[in-house]
């Protein structure tokens, strides 16, 4: 029997709090899960610093990847099976791409990628095509199979229906992370009737469409995306932790460039600092490694690095005020000067964070062909864009809601409040000193 068709003698199941069970029968999928590159995802949290706000959010990209695989499996084995528009020959490719779609994510990847100008998608490609255990498994299926898997994940594969299963505005990726993130954060948003959506999905040449009768289930899905975005993904406290994490990495890089002698040498970071990182260097990084350095760097002589690390490790985060860049950007220049006078480097201690810095996606109705929208299949066979049929979706799609916050170390201001420049800062930021806290 060909490796691509080989089945396990007994089905393996992973107990899963979101989907109850994740079922594996294909030998290829089982082998991929066992590779060291896939196992590394256990050590990368799905929601980065969100655990500092919602303490349950400790789930990993490993959990999520299995979930995306399971949803895709249910779509291709149940919803699509024996439909003429679906090519059964694409089944294994769809499952592998679903399982591996986040393979290149690094530790705290949002901040990490931003500071070092990296893109996890590039690493996903490199892991799939490079000298790795994942590549060995995929190559056993066929020599060109790794390339096909990489193309599906990069959204450049010829069969767009396969791409849309894991990468469209209603796909297995989003359906898993919304439910999983809701479960682990403990919030009551993020719930929708996935079983219903899976039942009304229909394959078409270029994408999955949804039977009109399933519109209300899709409305729920869009609403939960909207609510999760503002309530969880964009929580101001999580953003504060991201700000500090970003600044730690910037500071460490800056110190290395200044030939600073670290007490605890950042061996894992040298190749990134010097822009010569290999895939093998990248694969050695995980969140345990980062947290080890953050703990060690608390003892560094550089006051900024040690202070930022203490803040991150002990969750002594920056506080924030709402900030309107249009009206207040001049204020910001003034604050920068005052921060410097107070001995706080504004580069590290006065930070504007905008909603566009963390772009989780809203539903977009596909105006000007920006993104492929969700299409409903009407009884008469007509295809209509979702927001044209649903008033609820129309009400929230394309509506702008943006947000900016200014982060600062309130504890420092409190401690030094007698100093004249701090008094001025407190005044400009309109902080309340009456109850002894700011």
């Amino acid at each position, binding site marked *: 029997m060909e490796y691509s068709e080989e089945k396990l003698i007994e089905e393996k199941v992973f107990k899963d709090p979101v989907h109850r069970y994740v079922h594996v029968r294909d030998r290829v999928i089982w082998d991929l899960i066992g590779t060291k590159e896939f196992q590394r995802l256990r050590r990368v949290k799905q929601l980065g610093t969100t655990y500092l706000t919602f303490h349950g959010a400790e789930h990993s990209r490993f959990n999520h990847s299995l979930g995306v695989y399971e949803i895709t499996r249910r779509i291709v084995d149940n919803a699509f099976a024996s439909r003429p528009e679906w090519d059964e020959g694409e089944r294994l490719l769809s499952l592998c791409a679903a399982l591996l779609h986040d393979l290149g994510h690094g530790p705290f990847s949002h901040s990490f990628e931003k500071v070092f100008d990296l893109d996890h998608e590039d690493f996903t490609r490199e892991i799939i095509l490079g000298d790795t255990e994942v590549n060995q498994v995929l190559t056993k299926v066929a020599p060109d199979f790794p390339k096909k898997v990489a193309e599906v994940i990069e959204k*450049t594969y010829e069969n767009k229906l396969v791409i849309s299963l894991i990468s469209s505005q209603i796909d297995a990726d989003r359906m898993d992370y919304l439910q999983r993130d809701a479960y682990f954060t403990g919030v009551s948003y993020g719930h929708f009737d996935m079983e219903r959506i899976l039942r009304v999905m229909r394959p078409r040449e270029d994408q999955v469409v949804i039977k009109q009768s399933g519109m209300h289930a899709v409305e729920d899905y869009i609403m939960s995306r909207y609510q999760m975005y503002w309530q969880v993904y964009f929580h101001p406290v999580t953003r504060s932790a991201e700000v500090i994490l970003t600044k730690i990495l910037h500071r460490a890089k800056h110190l290395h460039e200044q030939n600073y002698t670290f007490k605890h040498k950042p061996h894992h970071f040298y190749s990134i600092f010097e822009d010569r990182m290999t895939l093998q260097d990248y694969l050695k990084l995980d969140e345990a490694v980062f947290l080890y350095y953050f703990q060690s760097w608390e003892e560094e002589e550089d006051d900024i690095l040690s202070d930022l690390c203490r803040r991150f490790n002990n969750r002594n985060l920056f506080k924030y005020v709402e900030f309107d860049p249009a009206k207040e950007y001049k204020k910001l220049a003034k604050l*920068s000067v005052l921060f410097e006078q107070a001995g706080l480097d504004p580069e590290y201690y006065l930070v504007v964070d905008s909603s*566009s810095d963390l772009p989780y996606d809203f539903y977009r109705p596909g105006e000007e062909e920006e993104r492929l929208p969700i299409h409903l299949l009407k009884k008469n066979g007509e295809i209509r864009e979702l927001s044209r049929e649903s008033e609820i979706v129309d009400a929230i799609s394309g509506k702008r809601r943006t947000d900016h916050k200014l982060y600062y170390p309130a504890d420092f201001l409190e401690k030094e409040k007698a100093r004249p420049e701090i008094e001025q800062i407190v005044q400009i930021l309109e902080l309340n000193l009456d109850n002894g806290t700011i």
Partner: protein
Amino acid sequence: MLKDHAKIIHAISVSGEVIGRKKLQKMIYIAKKMEFPFQERFQFHFYGPYSEELTLRVEELCNMGFLDEVKEKKGGYYQYRYTLTEAGQEFLGENSIEMPCLGDCLTDINDQNARFLELVSTVLYFDNLPGDEVREKIQTVKKSQKYTDEEIADAYAYIASLKEKARQLA
């Protein structure tokens, strides 16, 4: 601070007016590929390289009142026009951006039609592949656009001239 916002304002300022969200996406992507330091990350979507970060940043700039967005009906769909407001000019005055050659490049890109820019940005997206594979890719991912060999050759020539322009001015 707000440097990334200022760069987008600067780009629209030097372009005069940008008609179409899709065009704006392609302009910034191409400029980024010419090594102008835009931070927005692009991924390949159904219609080519697209940045959700850029979409959100432009939305923020409109909300701040630094960009003016006019929505107009064109045939069966809506199109958006972007220009700089007075407040945007003032903001730019206080946040100077050093990208001296950007104006010439973006004006040139802005003069091209959307179909051609879609092709140019797709060619650039696959610039790590050998030429033959790029052609094959374009025929695969842009099948419905039916780009001819001549158009693809024009896209390569255009990219070369744009690189030259960026280099000369630098």
